[in-house]
């Protein structure tokens, strides 16, 4: 187990800049999720920590030791790849023991470690099978087993669940989290799925365009997003972000809607953010026309229109309206977010 420090790390491929000076501090035993849209540089950053990409500028330290020039095998890390990268010509046992075999570990130690990892992951019965004989979830577990046997200082996961179906993804999500808590190994996990990030992380690092937009605890990001990008990225369904102006008597959104403001809002151009689940049904609310009603069972998501301003609401109540009907809604004022014209939180 170790701390990981990423200091002013930059990466360019030729003249294309991928990372523009990124700083992340990861505490010992922490589970950090790097999240962001495709092409934001999260996987590149992970690969740089693994040593699979050169570092153009800045430094990366694992356990206090700067590893910029250290080859991957000497960084004491283990990585789980998106497509598992299991060696197809080796059995599960051989796959898991491969790193120990290279390190010339004694046969009994290898077998002991493989058995231990297999027990943790429930793979005992599959040790003599080949990867092609395993299901997606089992392959995923073998990939994790291969990481566990090495007792690394840091686990690196590169979108490990993206090839699994939705149900298995939820199950594996909690298995990975549970395993990480049990082993208490520092973990860096890359995903583009903000739900994975929210449910698994101790710390989320939201990246966009090669920069860190915000980092912090999942609920801190949810409650106080630093800018419109984080506000729109974290949370599902995404936060309503309405451009307009803070004026007397409320927020005048583009499209004509006038929404109530929390006390102390400064006048001027702004973006009004309210999460769908923070809109409530109220008899004294603003009339909004229903566009689409999408019941999910536990809640009902409704696309609405106030004048020409589109909004999405998520209600615990079962909304029975039809398109064109009017619904009266109002935002929970304590949970309204205001962002300046540059996108930063006001």
């Amino acid at each position, binding site marked *: 187990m170790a701390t990981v420090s990423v200091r002013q790390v930059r990466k360019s491929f030729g003249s294309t800049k991928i990372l523009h000076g990124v700083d992340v501090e990861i505490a010992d035993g922490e589970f950090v999720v790097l999240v962001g849209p495709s092409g934001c540089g999260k996987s590149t950053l992970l690969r740089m920590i693994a*040593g*699979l990409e050169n570092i153009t500028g800045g430094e990366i330290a694992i356990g206090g030791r700067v590893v910029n020039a250290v080859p991957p095998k000497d960084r004491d890390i283990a990585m789980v790849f998106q497509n598992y*990268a299991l*060696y197809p010509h080796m059995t599960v046992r051989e796959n898991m023991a491969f790193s120990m075999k*290279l390190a010339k570990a004694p046969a009994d130690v290898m077998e002991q470690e493989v058995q231990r990892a297999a027990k943790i992951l429930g793979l005992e019965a599959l040790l003599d099978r080949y990867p092609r004989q395993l299901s997606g979830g089992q392959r995923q577990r073998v990939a994790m087993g291969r990481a566990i046997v090495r007792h690394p200082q840091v686990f690196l996961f590169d979108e490990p669940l993206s090839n699994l179906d939705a149900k298995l993804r939820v199950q594996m999500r909690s298995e990975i989290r549970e395993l990480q808590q049990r082993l208490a190994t520092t973990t860096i996990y890359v995903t583009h799925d903000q739900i994975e990030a929210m449910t698994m992380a101790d710390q989320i690092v939201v990246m966009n365009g090669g920069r860190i937009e915000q980092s912090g605890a999942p609920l801190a990001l949810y409650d106080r997003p630093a800018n419109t990008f984080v506000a729109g990225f974290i949370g599902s369904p995404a936060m309503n972000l309405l451009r307009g102006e803070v004026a007397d008597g409320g927020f005048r959104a583009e499209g004509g809607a006038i929404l109530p403001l929390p006390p102390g809002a400064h006048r001027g151009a702004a973006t009004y953010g309210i999460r769908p689940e923070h809109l409530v049904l109220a008899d004294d609310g603003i009339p909004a026309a229903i566009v689409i009603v999408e019941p999910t069972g536990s809640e009902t998501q409704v696309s609405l229109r106030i004048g020409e301003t589109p909004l999405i609401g998520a209600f615990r109540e079962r909304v029975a309206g039809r398109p064109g009907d009017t619904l009266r809604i109002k935002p929970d004022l304590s949970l309204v977010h205001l962002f300046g014209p540059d996108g930063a939180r006001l």
Partner: protein
Amino acid sequence: MSDVAASPGNTNAASAAPEQMAWDSRTRRVVMLYVPLACFVIILLFPFYWMTVTAFKPNAELYNFAEHNPLWITSPTLDHVYHLLFRTSYPHWLWTTMLVAVAATFISLLASTLAAYAIQRLRFRGSQYVGLAIYLAYLVPPSILFIPLATMVVQLGLFDTPFALILTYPTFLIPFCTWLLIGYFKSIPYELEECALIDGATRLQILRQITLPLAVPGLISAGIFSFTLSWNEFIYALAFIQSSENKTVPVAILTELVTGDVYQWGALMAGSLLGSLPVAIFYSFFVDYYVSSLTGAVKE
């Protein structure tokens, strides 16, 4: 009444339709698939049939089509095979050919595996151009290349030795094998090597323990190609070997079994038949690998 009359007719029509379709598709299959396939098979196999029939025909049948069916043997004989094996140096030619083909294939596979891996995976500066240059080398026809090569072979004192062929065959085998293997290495996911790097393997360990075991179908393909090309090679073998003892089968049967203007057809065909057997046996062992390397990639 008309309804009742109409319905059985309709039923018949409906039940006849699938049969009609089945018959159509069967006819189509015969015309489109089996007839062309049969033509191909006959055209491809007829020379082998002719070769076999001639090899076992006594001379009396061989030179008298008026009284004997040219496509059949009435009284088969092993005379030609006996003549070939015991009155000529055929066993020695066969041995030389085998030695040259195996050694040239081994050298070519070794060199092209390393070249293909370096070009495809190490991605050094200019690797693409090196790949292209190797391919261009393959395009130089042997009929031009054998002149400068002959000078080199003589200067190195290799003329009329098997080494003249073992060392010159790789000039056309390596480019071909390198290109075949570059394509095959490309189909092996790069993550496997990255994973092995993290697991602590060196480049050579990765090549030996990860990439090569996965590239076996590609290696076998390249090996079969190299072996066949070396086995059948004619022009270098004709130019660089002089003594009867050191000749390879394709050259020897043409130069040693044709005396003046007399063609010993029986021995010629027996020599060709025996000479093509090793390649056929070699193919039959590895045909699955060979097909998979041409059609498929690495499956996880």
